[in-house]
């Protein structure tokens, strides 16, 4: 496979910013596979079953439902559409064998999205500066995902832990968004890993 190059490489400098306790940790998680799958109307359950067989992830039915493990993630972000990520490469090559054209579509976004992870006790607070979304645990349970936008930057966000969110942005906007995220995190102190 073609090596993935991070658009954040010139600006991602590990280290601590600020004095005292760190409110958030920022990191790039760089999955080897990022794939969007979509089901034609009426084929949603069949697609969810295929995702389960291909990735081992049991996607809950329902708007924005999702699941995340240490190495894999899946969530719904629009009616009949799901985003899948795997630290391993190869998902985009494997899925089209199962997702036939009668069932839906597979789009390889592995080089098209950058995934930024924000975690820590102040993660909800920092995200609330960007998005008019209720990030509280009851409104967005662990595993659940959503689509939203920060000005012109589209973002798909999955809560991958109680205090942890993975933000998928277009790679061409990733460096700009990363810098904004760093600025917004200054107030609470942040560590880049």
């Amino acid at each position: 496979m073609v090596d993935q190059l991070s658009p954040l490489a010139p600006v991602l400098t590990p280290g601590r910013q600020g004095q005292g306790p760190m409110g958030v940790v920022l990191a790039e998680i760089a999955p080897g596979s990022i794939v969007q799958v979509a089901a034609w109307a009426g084929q949603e359950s069949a697609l969810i079953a295929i995702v389960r067989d291909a990735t081992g992830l049991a996607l809950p039915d329902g708007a924005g439902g999702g699941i995340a493990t240490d190495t894999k993630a899946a969530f719904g972000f629009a009616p009949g559409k799901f985003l899948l990520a795997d630290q391993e490469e190869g998902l985009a090559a494997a899925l089209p064998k199962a997702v036939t054209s009668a069932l839906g579509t597979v789009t390889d976004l592995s080089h098209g999205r950058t995934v930024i992870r924000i975690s820590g006790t102040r993660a909800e607070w920092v995200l609330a500066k960007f998005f008019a979304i209720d990030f509280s645990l009851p409104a967005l349970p662990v595993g659940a995902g959503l689509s939203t936008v920060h000005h012109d930057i589209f973002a798909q966000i999955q809560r991958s832990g109680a205090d942890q969110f993975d933000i998928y942005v277009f790679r061409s906007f990733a460096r700009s968004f990363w810098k904004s995220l760093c600025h917004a995190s200054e107030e609470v102190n942040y560590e880049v890993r």
Partner: protein
Amino acid sequence: MIITCPYCGPRDSSEFVYQGEDGRTRPDPASTDQAAWNAYVYDRVNTAGEHEEIWQHSGGCRAHLRLVRNTLTHKISSVSMARHATVPRRRRKAETPA
């Protein structure tokens, strides 16, 4: 104004793009009927009150939605997926018998 997307939940209206009145019928693309095209492009009911209209959740799930919004109060009484629209559409002005 907040629009409650059936998929995404309540979102600020800045995430949505207005796509005009619902119920417009596009003439056959091969048609050269000037009156029909004129009506399609320009004629609007311009309701003062309950208004049936199409929005796209462009900054979210990207689905097209069918709203009933009161143009006097901005109160939204109904939001549904446009592709599942089941509410009978009102007659257009142009379709009203003379």
